[in-house]
């Protein structure tokens, strides 16, 4: 016989529940049959979530001295908060209320009224058995450090950093490359407006570089993250630049004088060269160059020093002795905007990239038509001089393909249309776009498609089978032949062209998993960071205090990336303004007297909440880091770890309750052995 006084409330939800479950019968039954379990009041009501319904509960708590409440209604994901708040108003700890989902799990999914009613009763029995084991809980409060770390200096990170800095709070912007700017700095034009990427990006880069509230840490990487929401301690490795930022004026003479030419696989996408001491591009922020030790003659052979010799500053800016520095910073929130990698089309040999000279990737093409690129914006073949007379653009390279990436990269259609337009505009060549589906959702995108159609670009609906130089017919000699089924006419076509552009997929960063682990956030198998809710919480993560923005979360175009950067910043600003944060008290904790120090649980927590005290040989859980999953609770062979709100006693009691009846409603409890 329970000592608790439990109230049971069965909602009709209009007819949503009542049309299948005999709610009146359920309420009467609960009062009579669950009296031993502590039920003193049981009622049914048209809409429990209405203010009248809530008042019903509040009145009962006061009148009948209820110590526990069970609401049988919709899913707790909808109204748990409502009923908890109602209990709280009546002076009952909100965590002493339990919801039973008899709408989503009973009336909406079952048709047989009798069996559905039986199931509803059993579920209520489970709820009642469970709720008597509930404990009153108080939320945890943590203070919020007003500083923010933004990881990644692409357009998403820049946007987020500026929003926060402009609001008057300090930001650390960490970027692993020598400059901020990200992929956007490599592009020529941006769709659909055809703005010059550099024209709109560089002012923002300069703002970020000069902002009094932004500490720029380029050529740097986050080494480790300790602490928790409101109070992270982040260790950043500032890689040696071999150029003193305190004295360098960014004059660029060292770059001019450096005798070593290096193929630039990064910024120029392998299509151009840089020096061994370099700045990825003239407008780089910060302006200081960096020495690439792998290719620098001094670092390789101990001789040269041309850069140092010609450096005009006093003292000399070149410092070959510089070492990596480790900087510790304290922040309250973190925004991850680490971007994407481009799919390597060498993985699809039938498209010939790497073997056939005139097959280009989308990024190569961006550099090719960029006025600041290796050809000064001339669209030419690999020989560097010939203008193509015909160009094929292949969509979905490495996207929408289960063998590579089964998702749609989202941007390739628009990007390919942009390429088609640029080729047409600058060379007048025949342009063929090969696509599976044309995806031009969002503002002004389809209009752009219309415009490109008007320009006379050919569209062939069909995923290209192969690109080959194996000619069969005279017209094919010396050309790249694109073999494809034109699905509109249902026939195989072989279209000879001079140049092929592969619209390659956007992929997660190669080290996304490690980064996710470092920050303790969830990452899909592919490597995209997982947001807290795909629709309703798209920039927060499951880890409190860590937010995502831009392509690190999934492929997206520039407008969405900027919007996400701003959204993440807004979330962080909201947190900073709160100054203090209340955390859900669903947490695990160790009962020290029961802990044998076996260390089974020590590796269970991806959030590093579990600490082992060597001196006392016992384990402890940091409640601020614990996310409440309960994995360590289930792992402990001594039951020395308990989880609030999901304790073993609660679950075991719920199982008992649920198994009060069989499906037909016959009691089975007494059949079970002692």
């Amino acid at each position: 016989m329970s000592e608790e006084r439990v109230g049971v409330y069965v909602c009709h939800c209009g007819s949503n529940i009542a049309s299948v479950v005999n709610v009146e019968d359920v309420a009467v039954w609960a009062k009579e049959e669950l009296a031993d379990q502590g039920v003193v009041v049981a009622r049914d009501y048209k809409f429990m979530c209405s203010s009248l319904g809530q008042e019903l509960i509040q009145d009962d708590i006061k009148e009948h001295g209820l110590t526990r409440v069970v609401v049988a209604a919709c899913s707790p994901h909808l109204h748990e908060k409502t009923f908890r708040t109602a209990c709280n108003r009546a002076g009952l700890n909100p965590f002493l209320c339990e919801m039973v989902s008899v709408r989503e799990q009973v009336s909406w999914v079952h048709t047989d009224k009798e069996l559905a009613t039986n199931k509803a009763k059993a579920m209520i029995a489970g709820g009642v058995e469970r709720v008597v084991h509930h404990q009153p809980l108080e939320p945890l409060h943590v203070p919020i450090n007003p500083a923010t770390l933004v990881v990644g200096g692409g357009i998403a990170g820049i946007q987020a950093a500026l929003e926060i800095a402009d609001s008057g709070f300090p930001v650390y912007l960490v970027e692993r490359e020598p400059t901020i700017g990200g992929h956007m700095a490599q592009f020529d034009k941006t769709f659909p407006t055809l703005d010059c990427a550099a024209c709109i990006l560089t002012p923002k880069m300069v703002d970020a570089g000069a902002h009094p509230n932004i500490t720029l840490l380029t050529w740097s990487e986050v080494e480790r993250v300790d602490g928790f929401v409101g109070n992270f301690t982040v260790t950043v490795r500032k890689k040696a630049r071999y150029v003193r930022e305190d004295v360098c004026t960014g004059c660029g003479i060292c770059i001019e004088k450096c005798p070593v030419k290096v193929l630039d696989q990064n910024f120029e996408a392998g299509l151009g060269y840089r020096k061994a001491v370099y700045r990825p591009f003239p407008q780089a922020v910060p302006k200081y160059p960096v020495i690439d030790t792998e290719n620098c003659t001094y670092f390789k052979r101990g001789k040269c020093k041309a850069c140092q010799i010609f450096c005009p500053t006093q003292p000399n800016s070149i410092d070959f002795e510089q070492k990596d520095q480790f900087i510790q910073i304290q922040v309250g929130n973190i925004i991850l905007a680490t971007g994407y990698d481009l799919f390597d089309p060498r993985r699809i040999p039938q498209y010939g990239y790497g073997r056939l000279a005139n097959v280009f990737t989308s990024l190569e093409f961006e550099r090719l038509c960029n006025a600041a690129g290796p050809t000064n914006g001339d669209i030419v073949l690999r020989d560097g001089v010939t203008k193509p007379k015909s160009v094929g653009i292949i969509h979905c390279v490495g996207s929408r393909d289960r063998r590579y990436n089964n998702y749609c990269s989202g941007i390739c259609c628009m990007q390919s249309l942009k390429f088609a337009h640029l080729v047409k505009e600058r060379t007048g060549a025949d342009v063929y776009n090969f696509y599976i589906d044309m995806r031009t959702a969002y503002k002004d995108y389809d209009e752009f498609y219309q415009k490109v159609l008007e320009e006379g670009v050919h569209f062939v609906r069909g995923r290209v089978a192969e690109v080959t130089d194996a000619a069969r017919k005279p017209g094919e000699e010396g050309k790249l032949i694109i073999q494809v089924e034109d699905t509109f006419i249902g026939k195989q076509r072989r279209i000879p062209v001079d140049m092929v552009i592969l619209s390659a997929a956007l992929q997660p960063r190669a080290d996304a998993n490690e980064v996710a682990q470092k920050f303790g956030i969830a990452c899909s198998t592919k490597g995209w960071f997982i947001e807290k809710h795909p629709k309703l919480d798209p920039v927060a993560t499951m880890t409190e205090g860590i937010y995502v923005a831009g392509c690190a979360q999934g492929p997206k175009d520039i407008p969405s990336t900027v919007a996400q950067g701003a959204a993440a910043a807004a979330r962080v600003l909201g947190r900073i303004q709160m100054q203090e944060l209340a955390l859900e008290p669903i947490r695990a904790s160790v009962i020290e007297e029961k802990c044998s120090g076996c260390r089974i649980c020590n590796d269970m927590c991806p959030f590093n909440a579990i600490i082992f005290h060597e001196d006392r040989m016992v384990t402890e859980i940091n409640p601020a880091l614990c996310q409440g999953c309960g994995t360590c609770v289930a792992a402990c062979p001594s039951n020395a770890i308990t989880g609030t709100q999901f304790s073993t006693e609660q679950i075991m009691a719920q199982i008992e309750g649920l198994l009060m009846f069989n499906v037909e409603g016959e009691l089975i409890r007494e059949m079970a052995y002692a």
Partner: protein
Amino acid sequence: MAEKQFEPLIIGFTCNWCSYRAADLAGMSRAKYPPNIRLIRLMCSGRMDPEFALKALRSGADGVIITGCHPGECHYLEQNYKALRRYLLLRRTLKQFGIEPERVRLIWASAAEGARLAQELTKAVEEIRALGPLSWHNVVAADGDRPLELQHLEEVAA
């Protein structure tokens, strides 16, 4: 009247972030499944203690379903991998207790897979129905040998 068919009783354990939401979605989209399944919400499949399964089987359940996020999509990063390992070892152990592996199942279901969850649950009910009742209280009480009367012992002693 047709012969009453066996109605198995199944306890399902769901993850708060994926499969419980999938069950919500099944409801919202009115995807039907048999009323033989009663669900319990855990925060994560990583909370699934094998004791829960044993308790359910002993207390009258004919089957147990454990559900969680797809591998790689756990909201707590990797706890479903632990759930998978525990499930596989539990299944091996239960085999030695004469419990068919089909009675204890693991289903991955994301929050978006309401219809699929309903299908999988239906399939599970039908397959467990085909296995027949488990009735663990009968298993344990299967002795059929009541203690003999005290006098028999007396005679032996004499």
